[in-house]
Each structure stands twice: as structure tokens, then as C-alpha cells.
């Protein structure tokens, strides 16, 4: 591992892996599940990623200096390790494709209704591939730089909130059953998907001690932004109306009027393109990096070029927007399972092997 990232770059990389496309539909998804208590679902949804981050950091810090592919291979053996890596690669490819597809759907709805979907996917993916092939260092810088692009759209929503927000929409609190809340927590899966990339990025962090702190900070910042999006949307529209919109967070911006530009959400969409391309690139990068490590290929750009048609094809596959949304829900579930099961399995193996090794060392 010749290159490293700072813990601050890890923080922004994790934020940008999670925060992107999911935020637009999050108010709808959570409102459908628990109505006005959607904000609670956002907080509950953050628990699984938190556990996953903690487990992943534990695994990575037990094996310093090893990449994800090397850790799995060492702990699970040559073939089983490769299988685990493959599970992650497949997830990353599908996640990248799903994010890209939803991203393209938003573009279709707001900016380019008549351009063929495939062209838009290929163009977006080409930019994503260019970002990915630049390597982890540049990706870290970009993740940080483009994070600030998100801030103007957030500010743009303030006038709407000030003018139309009604806190009564959040009442009554805690009106659903416990099972409803736990189900609702799982619906946030797609919005939080991306947290599991920590297991791939963490080995590259320069100061290992700061990894966990940075990752938890990333999660807290993401939860805060999600909470802001959900609470503002629901206080402006109410939970009933929120469920009617495909992307309620964007509709929020069209409520407020600013004299120069006729329609605010367009400005937000253009800024959002910069934000939403990051999770696709990060997932793309994870897939590329693991393949590169497993097969010992020197150049990342070759792997990136190889993955390009695969991701483009998967992103193109859903026939319409509802199938695309179902694909993204699948990614959300997959990420929760992968994000907890994989580090748990690796940690278990590591503990067993670690004890064995410690005993061996004592005996000799």
C-alpha cells in the first residue's frame, strides 16, 4: 500500500459513500413506514451502520498494513477468502449500478427527458470511471471538495422551511408499534448503504487510531443531514403529502421562490449531480480495488475499464423507474447484511486465529 489517506479524507469518503441518491427519496420511504415519526426511523436506521463501522474497524485494526482482499484471504483461506471478496465486489458493482440508475432517473425527470437512458448512464459512468481511475488519494480529495457543493442546496431549502414549516405535522410522536419502527429502520437501508466501504478504505488511513473517530463522525454528520432533510420535508408537506412525491426532498426546493431563477430545484439538481456521482464512484472504486488486489493486477484503470460495461449493463437493465427503485431497495438490504455479516465473520475468524497464534507463540 504505497498511498494513504488522512482520517479527515476517510470521514468525507464515508459521508460521500452514503450521502447521495438516497437522500432524495428518504423522506418518502420513512414516511410510508411510520408516517410523522419518520425522523425516528432515520435515527434507528443509523444503528446498524454504527455497529458495522465498529466491527469493521476492529477487524482492520487487528491486521494493520493489509488491504481488505489480503485480510479475507489470510483469515478465511485462499478460496473462501476469494469468495468473500467476490461477495463484496458483486455488491459494489450492483450498488454502483443502482445508484447510477436512480441518479439517471432524476436527470431524466428534471433535465433531459428525451435523451436515451443508456446514453445518460454511459456518460455519467464515464465521468465516474475517470474519478475512480485516479486512485484513492484523488478520490479522497474529490470526496472532500464535492461535499461542500452539497451545502448551497441545503441553504436554498431554508426559505421554504422558514415560510411553510409547521411543527404540528410531527405530532403525535411515538404512535406506531415497535415492529413498525424496526421495519422502518430497515427501509433506510439504501440511504445508509455505503457505510460498509469502510472495511475497504480503512486500511489506507495514515493514523489508525483516528479511524473509528472519523468513521463515527461521518455517520453522525450523515444522520444529521438526513434528519434535516426528513424533518424539513415532513414539516412542510406533512407525512401524507410526502408519500406522494417520488423525490420529496427535491420538491421542497420548488416551494420557495427566488426572484432571479424561475425554478430552484434545477439549481439544486445541478449541484446535486456533483454530490450524487460520488457514491457511485466510491462503490466502483471498491469493486475495482478488490479485483485489482485479488488478482494482483498492477493498473487500476484496466480493471475500471473492464468493469465499465458490466456496471453500465446492470444500470440499464431495469425497464422503468419502479424496477430501478426496487433494485435500490435490494442494494439497501444487501448492504445491511453484508455490512454486518462480513465484518462479524472476519472478526470471529480473526479472534480464533489470533488466539491460536498467541498460543503458538507461547509454546515456541
Amino acid at each position, binding site marked *: 500500500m504505497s498511498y494513504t489517506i488522512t482520517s479527515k479524507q476517510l470521514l468525507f469518503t464515508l459521508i460521500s459513500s452514503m450521502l447521495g441518491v438516497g437522500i432524495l427519496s428518504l423522506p418518502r420511504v420513512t414516511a410510508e413506514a411510520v408516517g410523522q415519526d419518520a425522523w425516528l426511523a432515520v435515527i434507528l436506521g443509523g444503528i446498524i451502520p454504527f455497529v458495522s463501522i465498529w466491527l469493521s474497524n476492529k477487524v482492520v485494526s487487528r491486521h494493520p498494513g493489509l488491504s481488505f482482499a489480503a485480510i479475507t484471504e489470510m483469515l478465511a483461506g485462499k478460496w473462501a477468502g476469494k469468495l468473500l471478496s467476490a461477495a463484496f465486489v458483486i455488491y459494489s458493482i450492483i450498488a454502483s449500478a443502482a445508484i447510477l440508475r436512480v441518479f439517471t432517473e432524476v*436527470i431524466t425527470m428534471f433535465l433531459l427527458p428525451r*435523451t436515451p437512458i443508456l446514453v445518460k448512464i454511459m*456518460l455519467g459512468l464515464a465521468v465516474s470511471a475517470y474519478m475512480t481511475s485516479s486512485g484513492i488519494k484523488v478520490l479522497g480529495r474529490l470526496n472532500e471538495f464535492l461535499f461542500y457543493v452539497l451545502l448551497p442546496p441545503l441553504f436554498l431549502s431554508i426559505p421554504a422551511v422558514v415560510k411553510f414549516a409547521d411543527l404540528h405535522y410531527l405530532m403525535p410522536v411515538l404512535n406506531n408499534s415497535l415492529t413498525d419502527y424496526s421495519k422502518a429502520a430497515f427501509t433506510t437501508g439504501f440511504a445508509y448503504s455505503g457505510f460498509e466501504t469502510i472495511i475497504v478504505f480503512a486500511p489506507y488511513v495514515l493514523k489508525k487510531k483516528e479511524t473509528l473517530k472519523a468513521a463515527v463522525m461521518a455517520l453522525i454528520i450523515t444522520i444529521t443531514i438526513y434528519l434535516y432533510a426528513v424533518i424539513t420535508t415532513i414539516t412542510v408537506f406533512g407525512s401524507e403529502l410526502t408519500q406522494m412525491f417520488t423525490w420529496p426532498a427535491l420538491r421542497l426546493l420548488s416551494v420557495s421562490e427566488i426572484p432571479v431563477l*424561475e425554478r430552484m430545484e434545477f439549481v439544486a439538481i*445541478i449541484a446535486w*449531480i*456533483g454530490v450524487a456521482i460520488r457514491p457511485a464512484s466510491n462503490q466502483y472504486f471498491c469493486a475495482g480495488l478488490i479485483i485489482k488486489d485479488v488478482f494482483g493486477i498492477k493498473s487500476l484503470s484496466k480493471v475500471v475499464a473492464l468493469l465499465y460495461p458490466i456496471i453500465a449493463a446492470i444500470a440499464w437493465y431495469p425497464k422503468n423507474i419502479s424496477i430501478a427503485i426496487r433494485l435500490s431497495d435490494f442494494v439497501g438490504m444487501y448492504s445491511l447484511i453484508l455490512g454486518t455479516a462480513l465484518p462479524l465473520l472476519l472478526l470471529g475468524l480473526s479472534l480464533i486465529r489470533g488466539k491460536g497464534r498467541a498460543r503458538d507463540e507461547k509454546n515456541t
Partner: protein
Amino acid sequence: MKKYRIALKAVKPMSTIKFRNKASDGEKNADSADFFDRTADRLRKDLSGNADVIIRELFIGGNENLDALIVYLIGNIDKKMLNDNVIKPLMTCSGLENIGLSGEGLKEHIAKKCLQTGSVKYQKDYKAALQDMFSGEGILLAKGIEGFIIFAVDGGQKRQISEPETEKRIRGTKEGFIEDIWVNIGMIREFIKDPMLKIEMLKIGQRSQTDVAIAYINGLADSKIVDEVKKRIKKINIDAILSSGYVEQYIEDNPWSVFPQLLGTEKPDKAAANLLEGKLLIIIDRTPYVFSAPTLFVEFFQATEDYYEKFHVGIISRIIRLIAFLIAVLGTSIYIALTSFHPELIPSELLISFARLRKKVPFPPVIEALIMEFIVEVLREAGIRLPTSVAGTLGIVGGIILGDAAIRSNLVSPAMIVVIAITTVCNFVLPNYSMTLSMRLLKFFLILLSATFGAYGIALGLIVIVTHLAKLESFSVPYLSPYAPFRLRDMKDALLRLPLWMYVKRPVSIPHIDDKRAVNNRKKSGTGEN
């Protein structure tokens, strides 16, 4: 007749030029008189055909046993100085009887009593001496001395120090660099009189033998970067360096990038400011441009007036420059995207007047834009070539008459003319000319993207540009810092320009050793001085 051979393969350095040696084995034993005759013959043969080389024969101190030759380039020396301080004292030199007529004594005597020039050195090597002569110094060959005495009489015509055309200033020094490397170094030295300011000289170009100086402040500049710059400059293998651009293109990190990766300036105060930030300067003979390395993207937005005027003005002009940069790069493409893809974004009253104006124009906005951009580029290109008096007329004919005629004949809509005019003016707001050249390439890239994919194309194009910028490095320093990677301390002098007394430490983006820059004398000390 023996001719000396210049190895004609272009890549052979000058030092390998072979001079045929007449009697190489017997040389050690031959006495000095023999050496004089032999070398004089050799000089005459080697230098025959060089009309500007003058070989002047004389007797030192009028002594007929002391033959001597002075060789110099007529165009590159100061004739008056040669006559008054070299030839006259040499010919009237006295006291030669006491020291004998050869050897160390004679050499000492000539150097210390006869030659009245600023620098005198002794050179035994024939080729090196000849090289010095071609660099504008005079060489003296005297009977009795086995070698050459080299004295500096360099002169010749130099351009007066004047205010550079491309970097005009209201405050600060009006001086600009000229072509002569030593004058330029002197100008920098006048700003920084620190003995730690080191100047290292290199020679590159086998035929041109161009002087390249690397200047840095020892104990401030990062030695790794100094070594890296030196290494890259030494690696240049070319027959001639005609301009600083040659060096730039050989040493920059990414030769495929459209962005300038070395900041060139014609101003000694700007060069000095760069030295003080821990950068180093690359000064090249025969070019009034001095480069500083490593270079950051933000530097192209910083002008010296920002620091010389009050900081409020500095902040405002920086923000204006950033907006102008964005308009120059994005203006035309946003107009195209709005009119041909997203008309719903334009407020309805404006949209109606746009539509009315565009009604008679037969072309799509892209074609309109490309026609107008082409005309502007042509006018600009022609304006550089033409003499100043004609260029003004061209501006009126091209700008006003042509623009008006284009609208009347419905080639382009008036709105497009406004957009093109604004973007063209905005293009020149940046203080660096190289960056304005790169900006127009970016503009065309984005115009094509917006013409095909509207705002989506622009957004993706911008991401590609930002990715490219984040990828660039200048001597292992990230080009986009302090933005990416984000460095809070340098934000004081990036988009903003905070008061000077707040810059107590040097920017972290540039690796340096001595961190302390100033003491903040405005900080309240707490001991109560009201």
C-alpha cells in the same frame, strides 16, 4: 589545413566538441613559449570563419618578448571598458623586469596589477576558456603562461528595465524583468538581501548553452523540492533553449494538462513574494519570465495589488475574479443549455424577449455561439500581431461594426452578443496570461458538452475538470490545495485575503522549513495598553 570538427549530432554536449590536439604527448615537456605559439595557431584555426570573434595581438608592457592575444566577441562586450581597463593598462604595464617573463609571477602580475576588471580568473582548459569567450567574456593568452586569463568585460546592448505590458500595476514596483539573467537576479536580490538567498547556476542546451538559475532561500525552501527541480532541469537534453516555455514544458508534472503548472511572472516583487513562501524560482537567460515552483491553482487568482491595497479591497477583487473566472468558463455554455434545453428555467418575461430576439435567427444557439467565439478568437489573435495603432482600429471594426452587422443580418441574436462580450471581458480579469489561454480551451469543452447534454453535460464537464485539477500535482504538491485537500490555515489567503498582520505563519500547502513569517503586533497583549 586542419579543421576542427564539431560533432554534428545535435545531442552531443558542447564539452565533447573535439578539437584536434596538435601534439598531445609532447605538451608536458614543451616550454611555455611553445605553448603560446601552438595555442595561438589553434585559436586562429578554430575561430576562422567567426566574423564576430576578434583576436587582438599586443605586447604586454610594450615588451616585444611578451606576445599576447586578447580574444573577445565584438557584439557581446563593452568596448570602452575593454579599451580603458584591459588593453590600455596591459600595454602600459610596468615593472615586468623584476618578475621574469614567465610562470606564476607573470600571471599574478597581470591579474593583480594590469587587468582592471571586476572579475579575473585563470583557466587552463582550452575548451572551457573558449566557452567563456562565447559567453561574452574576454580571454587573454600571453607568452609565458600556460593557460588563459579570463576577465569579465561583458556588455553589449540590453533592454532598459521597463514596466511589463502584461502585468501592469497601480501600486508596487513598476520594474519588470528583462532578458539578462544577471540583471534579473539583481532585481530579486534588491528585494531580499538575505545571505541565505542562494542562486545556483546550471547550463542547458548543447548549442545554446543557456544559463538557468535556481533561486531559493536556504532554510526556508524544502530541500526535496529544490533537489527535484534541479534533477528535472538537468535531465533536459535539447540543443537550444530559446524561451522559458521550453524549460516549462520539459519539467512540468503533467505535460498533457491544459493548465499551466508553473506560475510565470515578469515582476520582481511577485517573484520575491514567492521565494518568501518557500517556493523556488527558475530564472532563464534571455527570457523576462521567472517561474516559481511548486505552483498552486489559487495563485492564478492572486494579484500583488491584493496585498498592497487594504484587505477589504483585496477580498472584493478576489471574489470578483472568481466570479469572472466562472462566467468566462461557463457563461456561453450556460446560455446554450438554458435556451436549447431548459427554457423553463428562464423567468417568463425574459424568456419572451429572448424568443422574440431569436425568432429570426436560423441557427441553433451552439452554431451562433461558435460563430461568435470564432470571430472573437480571430480578433484577439490578430490584435496580438498587429501594431498597437492598428489594433485599436481593428477592435472598433471587429467589435462594434461586425457585431452590429451580425445582429442586423440575423446571424446571431443580440443576447448571444451580450453573453460573448461578457465572457470575453471576464476572460482577462485573471492576473496571469497563461491561465487565460487555458480558460478558453475549457470554455470550448463545456460549450460542446452543453450543446449535446445541456446542464447535465455542464455538470459532468465540471466534475471532470475538478477531478483533473485534483489529480494534478506540482512537484508533489497537490495543485488544488488548499481547497482539496482542504487546509483551513491557508484559507486566509485563498478565496479571502485577510489583513496582512494575520499571516503570522507561512502557508502549509507549500512545504517549507521556517514557519514563522511575522509577529501579529495587533493582538491584544492583555497587559493593558490602551
